[in-house]
């Protein structure tokens, strides 16, 4: 029996559920490694080489390199985890959040000071939602993390 997932239609939102945790396990644990100063320095010195130490998909590495946070959400990385990347880059959570909305930090801050994004905005967001990438794409073919290929034989 499939899991009940009644939350898929909240606009502009990715719920970090079982599929996301499975898909993003190693990518999230990479983020955790950035809690240590020496790892932050190693990552910033050669991002590609540091990412290659982690058994994650090429798409996930690309999204980290591009700092494409909305893509990271789709690929199973939770905001509290890639938040470690904000700190590594020396940007505030506010700036990171703003970038996911397509707003400048200044415009986002002004929105928050005037009371935040209103619930009525859900209607606009729903019409702007792009279809989610099929989750099975990751983990097939050359992009597959080695660990996952091995386990599935």
């Amino acid at each position, binding site marked *: 029996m499939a899991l009940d997932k009644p*939350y898929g239609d909240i606009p502009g939102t990715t*719920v*970090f559920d079982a599929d996301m945790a499975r898909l993003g396990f190693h990518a*999230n644990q990479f983020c955790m490694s950035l809690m240590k100063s020496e790892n932050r320095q190693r990552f910033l010195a050669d991002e590609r080489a540091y990412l290659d130490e982690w058994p994650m998909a090429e798409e996930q590495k690309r999204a980290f390199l591009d700092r494409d*946070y*909305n893509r990271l959400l789709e690929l199973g990385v939770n905001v509290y985890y890639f938040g470690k990347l904000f700190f590594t880059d020396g940007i505030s959570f506010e700036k990171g*959040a703003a970038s996911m909305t397509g707003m400048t930090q200044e415009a986002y801050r002004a*929105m928050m000071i005037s009371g*935040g994004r209103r*619930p009525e905005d859900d209607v606009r967001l729903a019409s702007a939602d792009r279809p989610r990438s099929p989750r099975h794409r990751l983990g097939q073919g050359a992009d597959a993390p080695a660990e996952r290929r091995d386990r599935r034989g």
Partner: protein
Amino acid sequence: MRPPNGATAVARVTAGVTMSHVPAIGAASDLGKAGDGYWQPLFAGFEFSRRWIAQRKPDVIFLVYNDHATAFDLNLIPTFAIGCGDEYEIADEGWGPRPVPKVVGAPDLAWYIRQAVIQEDFDLTAVSNVAVDHGLTVPLTLMFDRPDAWPVLVVPFAVNVIVYPPPSARRCFELGKAIRRAIDSFEADLDVQVWGTGGMSHQLQGPRAGFINQEFDARFLDALVEDPEHLCQLSLLDYMRQAGSEGVELVMWLIMRGALNDQVTELHRHYHVPASNTAVGHLILENR
């Protein structure tokens, strides 16, 4: 309520407190910016609270919070974790530990609660050597400002609200009742406050980031005081839809409410938007 002479004293739940635990609030306090224009209205709402707790200082705070991928990551995801350690270090969340005192535990009470509520079918995870992040330290800052040492013992109680699903509102409320029964039967002359932290409406992720629902927050505050049963009937989906994906943290406030009497007196309420990305709410409730 003291027992008659000769009887053994038991612990008492005297009050419940709720507040948000936004990390930027901690940074504002640590950097001496609490009086700045952006932060002053938020901290002003805690002036009453700091006077109140100085007069009604508990011995122990049972502090419900969530860890933010700090002590727990995807390697270990306890739904409910009770801190049973002697003390807790302040976590380095990526920019160095907050310059606040270490947190001293109440292990006798914590181990006792663990056993009592597991016997009531709430399966807690016991943790001892664990660093505490802003989820726990920002509430202490809001209530006690910047002391050399925290004036209370703390039982940290961490709830998973990051990896779906968090425990339901109903489950949290019933757990709070079980925790209350445990505290009420603990043989020690202790005043205990139960704090519920996190929320209120906010969303940190995706195109919907910045979501705030002031109408929902106001209804939630009213219902938490007068009709918590109504809040138990809301699903996790209701919370995410109406309070934002990270606003689901509000289920933690139901643990606090479950630990209080059915009838409570609202001593103080404060609400402010924004603290960074979040609506900040704060209540002080005393048992009636």
